[in-house]
């Protein structure tokens, strides 16, 4: 029995090498689907749909959009970490919609992830969501009362998207407007509780990378370097299988 357990632990360790903790406890809530899989892209008569399969069921992740879209699609040749909540909505492109859903492209190549399905009658894509990319998004805000900002990140990533760069711009604008005496930047590292009970931990250095990047950008946006304090917490945040994506973050606090 001990031998079998050892083999099992080693096997799980092989599946989740770097930065992965593979202990089995309880599982996330039943309506959550947190898993790593190869993404699937399905062509349609309009926009391609992105899907992923978990335990024999197909889930709809989102539609192809643009760099200004809320949803950044996965990438073939890479696995994807899916963190979403099952809905009762009708299937889209053959998959059960997950909402909200957060996807993160796993950095390492996996050439087995290569499924592109043709368009079929009866598997239509829904209308594309309205673009948030408007002129308004490029304009600076007017209010200056906000003091705390949270910059979210994909799993194991310090890449700032079109949307998250806007958060930094706004934070810098307000810091300058209120002549902030200090700006605290704090980077975090998180863990994702997968639906199979395993925990997927972010790389050890990611909190530091995130914090330093945000700090440098704030300085680049005109904040005095002496006013910006950059810190990070190398200890991974606890996970609950629901709010884990929100914990992959950098917080900015403006102190007038």
């Amino acid at each position: 029995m001990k031998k079998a357990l050892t083999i099992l632990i080693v096997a799980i360790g092989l599946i989740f090498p770097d930065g992965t903790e593979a202990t089995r406890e309880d599982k996330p809530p039943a309506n959550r689907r947190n898993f790593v899989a190869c993404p699937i892209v399905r062509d349609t008569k309009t926009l391609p749909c992105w899907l992923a399969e978990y335990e024999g069921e197909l889930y709809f992740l989102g539609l192809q959009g643009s760099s200004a879209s809320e949803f950044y699609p996965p990438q073939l040749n890479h696995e994807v970490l899916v963190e979403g909540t099952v809905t009762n909505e009708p299937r889209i492109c053959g998959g059960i919609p997950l909402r909200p859903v957060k996807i993160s492209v796993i950095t390492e190549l996996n050439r087995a992830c290569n499924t592109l399905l043709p368009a079929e009658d009866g598997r239509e894509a829904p209308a594309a969501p309205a673009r948030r990319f408007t002129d308004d998004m490029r304009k600076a805000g007017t209010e200056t009362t906000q003091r705390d900002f949270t910059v979210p990140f994909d799993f194991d990533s310090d890449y700032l998207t079109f949307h998250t760069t806007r958060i930094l711009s706004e934070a810098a604008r307000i810091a300058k407007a209120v002549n902030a005496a200090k700006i605290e930047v704090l980077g975090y590292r998180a863990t994702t509780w997968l639906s199979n009970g395993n925990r997927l931990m972010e790389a050890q250095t990611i909190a530091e990378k995130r914090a330093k990047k945000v700090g440098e950008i704030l300085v680049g946006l005109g904040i005095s370097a002496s006013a910006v304090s950059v810190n990070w917490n190398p200890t991974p945040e606890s996970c609950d299988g629901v709010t884990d994506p929100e914990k992959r973050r950098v917080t900015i606090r403006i102190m007038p």
Partner: protein
Amino acid sequence: MRNHGNPDIRLIYADGDMKQARFQRHVIRLAILIAGLGLFVMIVRRGTAGYQGTPQALQWIEAGAGGLLPAELHFENALGKLGVLNTSGPIEMKGHPFFEPLGINPRGCITCHQPAHAMSVSVDALRERWRATKGEDPIFAAVDGSNNPKLPQALESSHSLLLNRGLFRVGLQWPPRDHHGKVVQPEFSIEVVRDPTGVNLDDTYGLKGVNPTVSVFRRPRPSANLKYVMSPDDVFNIKTGVLMATDPETGKPVSMNLMADARHLTLKQQAFGAYKDHQEGRQGALPREEIEKILAFENQVYVAQSFDRWGRSLVEAGGPIGLGPKAMAEGKVHVLANNNRDPVFRVFDAWKKPDAMPKDLSLEQREFRASVARGNDVFMFRQFWIRDAAHINSIGLGNPIKRTCATCHNTQMTGQDLAPGWVDVGTTNYPTWTEPPVFSDKAELPVFKCTCDKSAPPHPYLGRVIYTNDPGRALITGKCADIGSIVMGQFRGLAARAPYFSNGSAKNLRELVDFYDRRFDMKLSEQEKVDLVNFLSVL
């Protein structure tokens, strides 16, 4: 008219006024005298003030030749004529730093940026220069106009990359230097796998020399239409998610779309770099006023194809509004045009119906114009799967995306990327390059093996071991993910400056279209390919 004893004429004179006949002879003699004097003045002016008159005389401008560069010129090429417009009026080339040799060798900026070749230079012109000067033209200077400065420079084979592909040697320091000249710790090691020119393994110029250098071979980019090329995007660089690089003098964001590897951020930096590297000038020896004159010239010159191959102007009332150099001079900058409201090269509807075209056009011309209009539609609206292109698929758009040529070539009037446009489209990296096998004796370009550090993010579609002819942007950033990424170039004046791609791997527009067709499995029909080629030929 002279009388050669024709009695009928004598009769006429006899019947008319003999005085009038004598007067006519005087007028004719005077006219001949004036014409001769004019010819003499023209010859003298050409001798003292340089080229004046027909564009033919300006087909190749030698540095230091002087003369007047007219405000508007039209140069013949195989696909029609290229229009060149100097919006500030005629340019006196004598004493102008763009047109004069400034460094140690006798080259000027003009040497590699010729108006007849859309302010770049074509392979046909280079071959002609080799023939006409027996290889003595300064453009073949050993420093970068040959495959390797140590090769016997009198031999044509020592300049094969320039003569066959229009490529100049670009030697870049290793490890890389950032935009401030600071050494960058690269995420990858680089080794020379094949070195047909011998320069990368050379003990002076090579990777293991005293000043380790990686030599890559690239086409010169057109120094025209630069208001579009230099137009900066947002404060943030959407490709990297960090702040855009800034002009060190003004602190303002820059476009990063000027160079193939975006190493020079401003026209001023580029001018200094070209002076130092291509003209072998001394560091810091270029006066500020000369730089300003170079920049002033570059910022006012526009190029675009202006006539079709039948000699008919492409710019006609009621025709496409995006053609010709005047449209380039007048166009708005920084317009995202990957849409059907105001497309990248504007609208070609007037050319969609041959019956509605001017009546004096031949059937062939009508069909050509209709083909161009279809080609525009293919460029703008023909969808295909864009796949495994680093810095397109990897920046949040997804891999693959079902979009069009205009998705990436989205800037109105030039077809560059509105954002910093470095992309690994696959022209320089194995396995999508079009070069012969690495072991082949026919291989012309160097092959480098780049091995990325395990701790670094890999190239998103090639992993951590990449074979490449040119690491591109990665030779500046040192990033594994940037290996093979090249800043896309502008589409204007293409007919005047073959070959294409930064490594000259597409000899003509058809090869360019074929590359994309294969690379992205576009499944273009023969008609679509012809239409795309015709479309590109009029830009």
